[in-house]
């Protein structure tokens, strides 16, 4: 499985990659914002998107909306990783078509569960 990790903080991308490694996912590509991530999605075959919420240039929510309105990529499971645990934020992500979300902090087991649910939602 090839995973695209989108976060403006290189350190957070590293943390997510470390957690993914612990659940045996090592094929990871990175992008630092939604716009860069869309470029990656046009060039590479991606099986799962893990995206932060708050990013410059294109936020996670705008990136999510762009993905879900594009027939070529809308069926890639989209997992939102965020520190925003508040209900209105989560509702906004759900309304925008997110396949699952995970609130930081998370364990490898919790991330695995969130990935499984996101993939199941899209039938993958």
């Amino acid at each position, binding site marked *: 499985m090839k995973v695209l990790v989108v976060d403006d*903080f*290189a*350190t*957070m991308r*590293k*943390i997510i990659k*470390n957690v993914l490694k612990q659940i045996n996912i090592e094929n990871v590509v990175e992008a630092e914002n939604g716009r860069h991530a869309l470029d990656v999605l046009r060039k590479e075959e991606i099986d799962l998107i893990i995206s932060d919420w*708050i990013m410059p240039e294109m936020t996670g929510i705008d990136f999510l909306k762009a993905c879900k309105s594009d027939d070529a990529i809308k069926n890639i499971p989209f997992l939102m990783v*965020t*520190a*925003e*645990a*508040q*209900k209105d934020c989560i509702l906004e992500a759900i309304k925008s078509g997110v396949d699952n979300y995970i*609130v*930081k*902090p*998370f*364990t490898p087991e919790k991330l695995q569960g969130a990935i499984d649910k996101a993939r199941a939602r899209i039938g993958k």
Partner: protein
Amino acid sequence: MDVKYINPFIVATQTVFRTMLGINVEIMKPVLKNVNTTSGDVTGIMGLVGDQKGTIAISLRKKGAIFVFKTLIGDECEDVTHEVVDAIGELTNIISGQARKEFEKAGINLKASIPIVVVGKDVEMNFITKIPIVCLPFQFNLVNGNGAEKELFFLDFSFE
């Protein structure tokens, strides 16, 4: 200071350290600070607005900040690099998010700014609100090549 403003920060800090770092942190006796300067060497600061307004600051000593970075990322590191600074910023962001979730349970809705990180001891901070500032000291076991030692870090906040 009402205990309902203190507990969310304690729960959030302990949850984040346990979940992301596998570290149990112990809360020490809260103290009131009459100065608005950083308590440690690397400090993540976030403004909070909404039903209340205020500021929180997570402040680690150099040794603690490097240990947190190494545990979180898995890379070796001997000094406070920009990566250590980023990691403390992210830690502050996650603790703030978790604390806001706890506040929401108590019916207090808050929104946060983007964290900033300052490096240096006794750096002056703008807490928006008036002093005194509540300082929550935490302690954890810092395990390194020389065995285990107790390390302190601080969560300072002011609310009104």
